[in-house]
């Protein structure tokens, strides 16, 4: 709607237009739905299997608050938080990877580009060697280390704005230095401490409960809302800085905002479960190949991340039971094999 002035000329005043959501692309929507359902199905499977197997029907009953007390204890108190964490952290990792790959316009782009994981690892090593172990201490060490590294990389790369390529190179250089520090720690400390740090370094959901679910859910939820608020600007940035600027995006400010969101997402995941590798790198690429979107898309990446992490965590628990592997060991294997298969299939189809 627009108003006409006294002269009868339409000046086109500022108006609020509520457009319908437009054509929802069919293939991405179907893929997202299928991935979401698959993740939920694996979640139910994870709830029903373990030391004590519970039939899926009883699992659903226990979730609804019915059924026997023992089942409710096992399903809701013990197993549910882990499944929820796998879903939430999968979403966080997938989104974070998608943001960084779109920003750097490079399929090798990942939160590691800005040195977050390496810095988090340094923080954890410093804490375990000089302060002590304990879940919250380690999580705090990871957060401080990762955020400080990301900030340092941004500031070192800043010179009248942050050019994308300069950010990557500075990130590589800083990561290399911190990686050396980590290696120095690993060969310096005794075997026990080195092994403990290495297990944290693989990322694991072992022993996490409701105490971790609530803060993670709040964090990921808030970040998703913020991300939604930015709308399609990421896709515009991916088209190139000049094109984005021409289309009315404030490139520098928008990029900083996306960097902060991406780092915050990976920070939540790393603080909760350690640096789970490969999901952030693989999920956007896998999602892009399944949905056949031209660029990196956020929602399919998130769905793919949730699916990958839930599946990997279930395998990490059950594959060599009773030995529990860190989930990171499985994500690389599952994700890598799936990636390879997809590449082969795509090659054949061409």
């Amino acid at each position: 709607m627009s108003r006409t002035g006294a002269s009868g000329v339409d000046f086109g005043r500022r108006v609020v237009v509520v457009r319908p959501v437009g054509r929802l692309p069919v293939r991405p929507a179907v893929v997202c739905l299928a991935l979401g359902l698959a993740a939920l199905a694996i979640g139910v499977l994870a709830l029903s299997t373990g030391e004590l197997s519970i039939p899926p029907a009883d699992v659903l009953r226990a979730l609804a608050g019915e059924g026997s007390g023992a089942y409710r204890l096992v399903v809701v108190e013990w197993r549910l938080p882990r499944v929820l964490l796998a879903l939430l952290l999968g979403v966080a990792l997938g989104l974070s990877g998608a943001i960084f790959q779109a920003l750097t316009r490079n399929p090798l782009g990942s939160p590691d580009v800005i040195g977050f994981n390496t810095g988090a690892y340094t923080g954890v090593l410093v804490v375990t060697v000089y302060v002590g172990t304990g879940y919250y201490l380690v999580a705090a060490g990871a957060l401080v280390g990762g955020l400080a590294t990301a900030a340092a990389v941004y500031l070192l790369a800043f010179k009248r704005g942050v050019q994308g390529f300069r950010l990557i190179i500075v990130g590589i250089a800083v990561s290399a230095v911190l990686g050396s520090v980590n290696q120095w720690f690993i060969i310096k400390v005794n075997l026990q401490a080195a092994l403990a740090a290495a297990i944290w370094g693989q990322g694991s959901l072992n022993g996490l409960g409701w105490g971790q679910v609530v803060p993670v859910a709040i964090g990921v939820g808030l970040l998703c809302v913020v991300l939604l608020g930015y709308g399609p600007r990421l896709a515009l940035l991916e088209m190139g800085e000049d094109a984005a600027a021409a289309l009315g995006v404030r490139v520098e400010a928008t990029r900083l905002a996306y960097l902060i969101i991406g780092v915050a997402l990976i920070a939540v995941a790393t603080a909760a479960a350690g640096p789970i590798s490969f999901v952030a790198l693989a999920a956007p690429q896998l999602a892009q190949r399944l949905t056949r979107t031209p660029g990196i898309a956020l929602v399919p990446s998130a769905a793919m991340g949730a699916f990958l992490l839930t599946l990997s965590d279930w395998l990490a628990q059950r594959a060599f039971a009773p030995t529990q592997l860190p989930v990171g060991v499985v994500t690389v294997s599952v994700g890598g094999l799936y990636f390879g298969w997809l590449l082969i299939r795509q090659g054949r189809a061409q």
Partner: protein
Amino acid sequence: MVLARSAVQPRPAVAVTRRRQGLGLVVCLGVLAVVCLLSIALGTRNISLGTVWDAFWHYTDTDDQAIVRDLRVPRTVLGLLAGVAFGLSGAVIQAVTRNPLADTQILGVNSGAGLFVVFAVGVLGLTDLSQYLWFGFAGVAFALTLVYLLGSVGRAGATPIRLTLAGVALGAVLDGVSSGIRLVRPRAFDYLRFWDVGTLAGRPMQVATTILPFIVAGTLLALLVARSLNAVALGDDLARSLGASIARTRVLAMVSVMLLAGAATAAVGPIGFIGLMIPHVVRWIVGTDQRWIFVYTVVCSPILLLLADIVGRLVVRPGELRVGIVTAFVGAPVLIWWIRRTRVSAQ
């Protein structure tokens, strides 16, 4: 006449650039020679250049001369070879994948070598370098062959992006398997946390002479395909229309990476940063011609590795820091300083 002049005019500019690049190369060679001498003379016990000279030409079996002959020279030669191999393999990988972020890590080289060495140490129980050296080499060959096959399925062949992603995928799987083995076998973990870092110390001359033929062959092969890689850099279609055989270029380049990275990783462990950093810095100096990039990389990479090794020997005397740790500390500040002062883009 006008036509002829316009055709001839650009030549002086090219000649000047060539001369400048040639001069730069001579300067780099001089720096490399000085660094080699320092690497022989400096360490836990500093040795005068006169003694070094005597150790070569008037050997009388004193302690200092023995140190030079038995420890410092093998170490310097190994550093020279490994430096060339890590740097040049990085440059070749960046040219083949057309991705400035690629290095040996990306094509699964380190993961393949790591997995095979983990297997040799953790499952077969080998602990002697001369035994598992060949496992490291075989691991690199295995990983690169698989990556190439995986990346070249289908009619499009091994395009840079497919090669990169295949390397990432395969590297991840191999890494997952090897960290799985490590975590259930603490003895292997204990041994390999040291192998992972990479060091030039404690390698007899025999190690250097074993890897020498592989590194020479890999270097020659890389220099041979440099010209074709220039064409490939323009994109597959354009390269094909210029008459370059893309598939052959890629296969030869991958073979050269296999020889270089395989030999060096097997001998001294995975040292990552050189292959990433030196080609970047060199590219900013000499431009986009792969031939110049490769030649400069061959000369500049050992400078960084040997310098890092010397620093590692001097900072915590009488102990030493392993060269794999020091490399990033020496190189990264230079890289950051450089990227901040130049206005360069990815290519």
